């Protein structure tokens, strides 16, 4: 017994060692395994053994004044620990969240709130994520806003590993997470992206039975609606449109004309000038009450651009350049224009927008004040410091010169046709343009306008002097995507879709020149620490002098 008493500290050491191993196992396996439990119990027994062997000393210590004060102190610390944990639990159970980001990135957008509030039937969001996964946690956070906005929405967080029957029932095969949104017999699934945009679009698809058919004109070198790889493709914009119950169909305009089932025609960045019969088909479409979005790049398709005049839209052969660094992307490129809220003209398309629209290599688009039979309104204007450059040959002449538009240059126009006869539509075959080197009369182009075409008011047209806002690389910047989608919604009279959508990727580009990067290194790594080192030196010298 004497020997055991002498080596009682061994029991304490074994207890401490077991405690460390216990904690390590819990850390490694993420929970209390059987092995960890046995080791923990063994350690606890060792500590009890130590306490029993040294009970006299411990008792002596406890009976002393210091021991009693110590015991009271330990009890007080325990009470404070309990209060701290209890307080934290209350705060966690009634948690509040404040979004301090300038763009309110973690607050639901108006559209998402309105979609959630507008749910007509009970909707259940079944979120299958591994318990404790970061993605699951973020998604659960996201749904808080939706649940607060609607009493018809419920969220169930399900771990597919712990609930295999439920996972099998909903056919969950993706390990990284799947969200199933159920309303009655209808369901929508999210399997790749679990952000606000995806969830809102899924709810829109679930609730709206209405499909819109958009026809994408091809045949004159237009942007590719299926391209989601290249910077100038339109695949991303089309995916988002399809996520909102739009169907985008390619239309071979030069041979098919414009199909009557199209709800709107999209003409995006043609690189080959339209032939006269195609231009007449567009005029007949608009003059017959149709809707179209036309996005023309600077320097391209001069005939089609000139033909916009019949709709009351003036497009010049120019390039809008920006003189103010504040209105340029990264403050550098004069052809990259940043348009802020003050540059948005009053119109249902732009009214919900409060961010930035980013244009690149835009041409000027303006309203023809003398046009008859149409009501054209400007949508976007440049800053007062921009001008429309028309000289592309002599670099020395680049700058705001006499005769060039200067300040508040128009960049997009919306048109409503009041009197379609003013469009002067021809249903006759059109003469092909004369080609150099070919002798004789030019061939005749067949008319793409139906013989029974009749004029009808109510046609709408949006003309933008740039296709960048909807391109893959541009659509996520600021309000670019919203501007394009709102233009389409306005064309289709879909007033409830005129809004500012959630955008996970605001304008986040950061371009620094080599000099600026050098300056960062100089200030961060040398100037600031060097200044502190200098103060250290001064302090050292002063102390030595004392």
């Amino acid at each position, binding site marked *: 017994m004497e020997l055991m008493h002498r080596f009682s500290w061994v029991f304490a050491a074994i207890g401490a060692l077991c405690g460390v191993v216990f904690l390590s196992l819990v850390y490694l396996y993420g929970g209390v395994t059987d092995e960890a439990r046995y080791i923990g119990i063994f350690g606890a027994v060792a500590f009890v053994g130590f306490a029993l062997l040294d009970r006299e000393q411990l008792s002596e210590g406890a009976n002393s004044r210091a021991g009693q004060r110590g015991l009271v102190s330990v009890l007080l610390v325990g009470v404070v620990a309990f209060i701290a944990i209890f307080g934290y639990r209350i705060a966690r159970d009634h948690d509040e969240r404040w979004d301090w980001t300038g763009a309110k990135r973690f607050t639901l957008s108006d559209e998402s709130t309105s979609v959630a509030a507008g749910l007509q039937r009970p909707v259940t969001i079944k979120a299958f994520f591994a318990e404790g996964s970061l993605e699951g946690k973020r998604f659960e956070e996201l749904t808080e806003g939706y649940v607060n906005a609607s009493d018809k929405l419920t969220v169930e967080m399900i771990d597919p590993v712990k609930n295999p029957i439920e996972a099998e029932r909903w056919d969950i095969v993706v390990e990284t997470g799947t969200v199933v949104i159920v309303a009655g017999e209808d369901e929508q699934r999210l399997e790749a992206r679990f952000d606000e945009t995806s969830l809102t679009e899924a709810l829109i698809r679930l609730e709206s039975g209405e499909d819109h058919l958009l026809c994408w004109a091809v045949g004159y070198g237009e942007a590719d609606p299926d391209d989601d790889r290249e910077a100038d493709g339109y*695949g991303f914009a089309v995916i988002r449109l399809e996520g909102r119950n739009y169907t985008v169909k390619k239309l071979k305009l030069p041979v098919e004309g414009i199909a009557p089932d199209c709800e709107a025609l999209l003409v995006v960045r043609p690189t080959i000038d339209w032939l006269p019969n195609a231009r007449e088909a567009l005029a007949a479409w608009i003059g017959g009450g149709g809707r179209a979005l036309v996005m023309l790049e600077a320097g391209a398709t001069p005939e089609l651009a000139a033909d916009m005049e019949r709709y009351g839209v003036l497009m010049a052969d120019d390039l809008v350049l920006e003189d103010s660094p504040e209105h340029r992307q990264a403050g550098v490129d004069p052809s990259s224009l940043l348009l802020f809220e003050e540059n948005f003209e009053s119109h249902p398309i732009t009214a919900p927008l409060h961010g930035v629209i980013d244009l690149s290599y835009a041409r000027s688009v303006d309203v023809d004040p003398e046009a008859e039979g149409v009501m054209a309104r400007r949508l976007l204007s440049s800053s007062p410091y921009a001008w429309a450059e028309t000289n592309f040959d002599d670099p020395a002449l680049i700058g705001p010169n006499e005769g060039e538009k200067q300040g508040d240059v128009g960049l997009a126009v919306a048109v409503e046709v009041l009197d379609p006869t003013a469009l002067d539509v021809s249903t006759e075959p059109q003469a092909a343009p004369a080609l150099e080197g070919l002798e004789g009369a030019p061939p005749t182009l067949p008319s793409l306008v139906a013989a029974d075409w009749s004029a009808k008011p109510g046609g709408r047209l949006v003309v933008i002097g740039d296709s960048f806002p909807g391109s893959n690389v541009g659509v996520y910047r600021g309000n670019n995507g919203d501007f394009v989608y709102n233009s389409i919604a306005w064309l289709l009279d879909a007033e409830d879709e005129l809004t500012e959508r959630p955008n996970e990727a605001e304008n986040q580009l950061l371009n620094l020149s080599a000099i600026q990067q050098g300056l960062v290194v100089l*200030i961060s790594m040398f100037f600031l620490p060097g200044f502190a080192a200098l103060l250290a030196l001064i302090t050292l010298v002063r102390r030595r002098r004392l």
Partner: protein
Amino acid sequence: MRALAIAQRELSSMFASATGWLVLTGFLAVAGLFWSLSLAAYVDYSQQAMVTPYLASQLDMTEHLISQYFGSIGILFVFICPALSMRLFAPEVANRTLELLLTSPVSTADIVLGKFLGALGFTATMLFATAPFPLMLWQWGNPDLGAFVTGYLGTLLLAGALLSMGMLASAFTRSQIVAFMLAIAGALILWVLQAMGTDSWQAELAVVPHAQDMWRGIVRLSDLTYFAAFIGFFLFATHQRVEAHRWS
């Protein structure tokens, strides 16, 4: 008020010797290195995003630059805070100056709070000496100012938590090295606990997840309460430990 006077004395003593300035120099040099590297990587990422649509859709300055930067500063504090807190009580016990302090007309609470505020003040000085970093970004880019404000708040609270824990360790020993080792072990345990899933009690106990949302621009009542409870508990425990010197 006495606590503030003690805090002021602590803070002045930090800057009265070259050591304080040298710690600041080292911190700024490493933080500057982190910042330069993070910024260069982000600029590179931005340039790729100009021509790669997928990257453009994923680009996020708050997530990929600001939050990462504050995360790096957090790692630095795991080592710096124990180094700062180790000298709060251990040398006073070793040099027997604590008895002098305890016999002076200041309460133990004033002493504990004053020393804590002094150390926190020095940490805050270090942290806010990095203010030119966000200012540079503001000049050239479009950063989220709110994320910077909450990022600084989260990092300061993290430092406060680590300092309070280190102060308790310092009050338990007369050796600064032992105090440092105890504090750094505690800080590392609190750091690695986050690896045990986001919903586990261990992760809730971990200190970093409670700062992470603030590094992204979100302030939660539960996180603020966590830091208040954590710091409050360790200050109270330190108070009890220092009080024990009166009657031991």
